[in-house]
């Protein structure tokens, strides 16, 4: 069967005409959906608190992840075979299993009988998860520092701990700040999975609203836009900080 250009033309203009004709009705239904999603019962506050929890969980996880990451990175490069094995296994297992599965295990097995808020469980789970990735970032940062720095510290009589803490880590962390910022941005998106155990984050807010309005379109579009804007703002901020730091390097 051959469809001529003329026929396609008629089809397309037909669609366009339909769209134009149908737009007022669509707009009316869309705006009423928007009203139902945000205005009715002050549901915009749900999104706001959802965003708050998303950011809170991300921030707590990245802080916990940094602490775990630094400790694991130091263990990973230590002289003790046992410490190296522990952190190696941790990094291997965490990076080799899905975040969601880790979250479920931590929530339904480890914290099953513990009565604490789910956002805390979520933060711990994501912190443990990102700790493995941050450990590798930190390890790379430490290894990127010239061995001469360590030798200089040790030759002055400083212990290996003092040398690491006062000389190597400050330089390493400065080098890896962009990578850490990136990890934070990734985490903000990852935390959407927290919906598996709780509905207090942004995704949870969308689902609660959807449960009342039976409309998927507006709530999901709304949180997509919110995620996008938040991540855009944070990325820009991080880029600014990085730029300022690079300038400071040229002192």
């Amino acid at each position: 069967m051959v469809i001529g250009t003329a026929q396609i033309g008629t089809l397309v203009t037909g669609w366009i005409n339909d769209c134009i004709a149908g737009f007022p009705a669509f707009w009316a239904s869309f705006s009423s959906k928007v009203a139902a999603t945000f205005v009715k019962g002050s549901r915009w506050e749900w999104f706001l608190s959802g965003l708050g929890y998303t950011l809170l969980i991300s921030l707590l996880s990245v802080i916990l992840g940094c602490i775990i990451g630094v400790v694991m990175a130091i263990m990973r490069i230590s002289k003790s075979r046992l410490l190296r094995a522990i952190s190696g296994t941790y990094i291997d297992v965490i990076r080799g299993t899905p975040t969601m599965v880790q979250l479920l295990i931590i929530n339904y097995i480890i914290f099953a009988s513990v009565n604490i808020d789910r956002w805390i469980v979520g933060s711990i789970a994501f912190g443990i998860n990102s700790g493995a990735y941050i450990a590798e970032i930190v390890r790379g940062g430490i290894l990127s520092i010239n061995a001469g720095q360590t030798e200089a510290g040790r030759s002055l009589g400083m212990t290996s701990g003092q040398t690491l803490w006062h000389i190597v880590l400050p330089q390493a962390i400065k080098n890896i700040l962009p990578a850490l910022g990136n990890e934070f941005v990734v985490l903000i998106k990852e935390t959407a999975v927290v919906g598996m155990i709780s509905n207090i984050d942004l995704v949870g807010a969308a689902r609660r609203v959807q449960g009342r309005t039976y409309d998927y379109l507006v709530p999901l579009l709304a949180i997509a836009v919110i995620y996008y804007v938040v991540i855009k703002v944070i990325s820009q901020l991080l880029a600014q900080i990085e730029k300022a730091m690079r300038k400071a390097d040229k002192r």
Partner: protein
Amino acid sequence: MIKVTGLKKHFGDLEVLKGIDQHIKQGEKVVVIGPSGSGKSTFLRCLNLLEIPTEGEILIEGESITARNTNVNAIREKMGMVFQQFNLFPHLTVLGNITLAPIKVKKMPKAEAEKLAMELLETVGLADKANSYPAQLSGGQQQRIAIARALAMKPDIMLFDEPTSALDPEMVGEVLAVMKKLADDGMTMVVVTHEMGFAREVGSRVLFMDGGYIVEEGTPDEVFSNPQNERTKEFLSKVL
């Protein structure tokens, strides 16, 4: 002050030091020369255990540093080291570089450490750079700061590992001048260098190393004017 017996160092299958015996007395300025790969730097680095000797014994002020239970950090406090690549801490100011170890290791109060640092900066002629960062300084200035940093721990011995090899020619003089001043003040020094002029002028004893051995040693006059060993003659004929 430093007594080395039967010192050997292997890196895997590579034997870098094949048996070194040396006695360095207080106030001596020992200059180590020799072709690259002869083990000069490794010898120097063994003295403060930046390299762990494979065999042999090193006594510093009568204390064995090669024994298993030695407090390595305490030994290193007595020995300052200056590196070819300066190795200043780029994230700290000049003052921060000099005061870090006295504050952290000797638990010196900050004000006292800074006072000491300023005196040392005066000595190396860089008091006006106290608040600069290493990246803002020339190579020669960085190396003088590195010397001041090592001196801040009030060491009994100073080790120099090719301190002028990474410098532009016009900056070599200022660093050697600081080292010479240090020598005149009676510091015990072990210097690995290619600066034959410095070796001749400042050295109280010259060691010529080749192939992991000390092949020849003597006063600068003996070694430079009347070398006995064939390899010493050949080396000197190339560098002088």
